[in-house]
């Protein structure tokens, strides 16, 4: 059983749990850019949180199913059609053999997630099936979906219709407040204010998002010896902007690392789209761990196995 890609969207990929213990080979973690939304979709499809599902940046995708199965669509709010009729997000959908599911373009938020009961079959590499686009492995031959691709589905258990509890549905706007701790080069931005708005540019993909604003200009020679960086790192660039790293980012970098988005808020980065405004709120590292504990506890009431 499986589904066929009629419209592939833009850089749609198969994602699951991140890859761990591979960064010293230059291999990023990959995994969903918004892991909460993917976990919510999987929950509605009767799967564990990190079961392989589809990440659909900017929606605009259409699939045809060749088996009866349950699916669920979450993430950035988009119009969903099942067999030509409008269907809800955040609710288990029963799809019949031959039916088409189409996903429109979200007006706010960047990524839509579609989970299928049983999960999607994907290539395993180093303990994870998540697609790593820069290196070309995992997922479906390590690449984004194309028209005509066929995705296999594992046999799932019977699923009752579920709806995401309203308090867990993210309302995405065009303004994001992300909490940060200082990076090793935080001394370069002593005046960072939580009131200051920064703006995401069009340079955005699964490796990172460019953010403009009143960043300090890099002086000649302010490049640092290459240092390890993790998703959530905010690095200043020579063009006077900053780059916020996402799951497919490079593992080391020489640009000044001034802030680190806390682990509890990195999922927000996956929904920021060009033109959205961002404020950076300072936390201490131990406060950030408390933020993570609280958010995880809240999510686990509905997603008992969820991990950031």
């Amino acid at each position: 059983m499986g589904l066929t890609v009629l419209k592939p969207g833009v850089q749609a990929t198969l994602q699951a749990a991140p890859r761990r213990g591979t960064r010293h080979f230059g291999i990023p973690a990959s995994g969903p850019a918004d892991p909460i939304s993917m976990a919510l979709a999987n929950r509605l499809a009767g799967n564990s949180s990190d079961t392989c599902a589809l990440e659909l940046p900017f929606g605009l995708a259409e699939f045809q199913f060749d088996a009866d199965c349950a699916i669920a669509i979450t993430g950035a709010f988009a119009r969903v059609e099942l067999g030509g009729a409008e269907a809800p997000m955040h609710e288990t959908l029963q799809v019949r053999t031959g039916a088409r599911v189409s996903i429109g373009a979200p007006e706010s938020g960047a990524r839509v997630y579609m989970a299928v009961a049983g999960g999607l079959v994907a290539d395993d590499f180093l303990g994870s099936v998540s697609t790593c686009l820069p290196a070309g492995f995992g997922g479906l031959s390590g690449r984004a979906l194309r028209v005509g691709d066929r995705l296999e589905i594992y046999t799932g258990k019977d699923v009752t219709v579920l709806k995401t509890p309203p308090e867990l549905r993210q309302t995405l706007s065009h303004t994001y407040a992300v909490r940060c701790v200082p990076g090793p080069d935080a001394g370069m931005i002593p005046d960072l204010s939580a009131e200051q708005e920064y703006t995401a540019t069009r340079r955005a993909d699964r490796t990172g998002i460019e953010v403009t604003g009143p960043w300090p200009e890099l002086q000649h020679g302010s490049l640092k010896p290459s240092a390890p960086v993790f998703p959530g790192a905010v690095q200043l660039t020579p063009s006077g902007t900053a780059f916020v790293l996402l799951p497919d980012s490079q593992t080391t970098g020489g640009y000044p690392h001034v802030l680190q988005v806390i682990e509890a808020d990195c999922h927000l980065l996956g929904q920021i789209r060009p033109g959205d405004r961002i404020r950076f709120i300072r936390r201490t590292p131990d406060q950030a761990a408390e933020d993570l504990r609280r958010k995880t506890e809240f999510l686990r009431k509905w997603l008992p196995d969820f991990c950031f």
Partner: protein
Amino acid sequence: MAGHRLFLIGDNAVAIQPEDRLLRHPLARALRASQDWIDVVPGKQVVALQFDPLQELPSEALQRAADWLDRFQPDEITKGSIVELHLDASARCAPDLDMVASRNGMTAADLLNRVIGSELIVDMLGFTPGFAYVEGVDAALYSERLASPRQRLAAGSVGFVSGQLGFYGLSGPGGWPIIGRLTETLFDAARDEPFLLQEGQRIRLHLVDV
């Protein structure tokens, strides 16, 4: 171990900066073997240790790293293993070799002999998947990045900028002058051991006859 700096680089990673940067390699090996950290990643000066802030506070992870370092004996240092690799420096594989050689006022053959005669060590992997920074190239040799990067290099291409070689694990864009190509496959996802190289390994280069 004394003389190091230890600091947080976020809410989920600690960095150790040893006084002698060459200690990064035995440190990384020992820390990885301990299986106490999610990822152990060397940079040019530090080794970063990733932890789960849900399991311990960042201040606790910092203390755990400090305690571990107190017990770490730098005299246990062993040198990395030796990896023998073969370099094809024919014109097709080494488009910038003649340019780099003439900048150094020597023949291509002399330049290559100085490079392969150097004590080469894999300093770190990073930048892009499988890219290896190999240090130790004869300091008398000069080379700088190309004015504009090439759009596509073959996997295995060997770039040279003063002091270090860059082994491109994947095909893709690259800005280093290319002086040859390795005949070995550095990265192959289908192989049991997908990566040929790891930080701290010593490299012995052999020229292949073409």
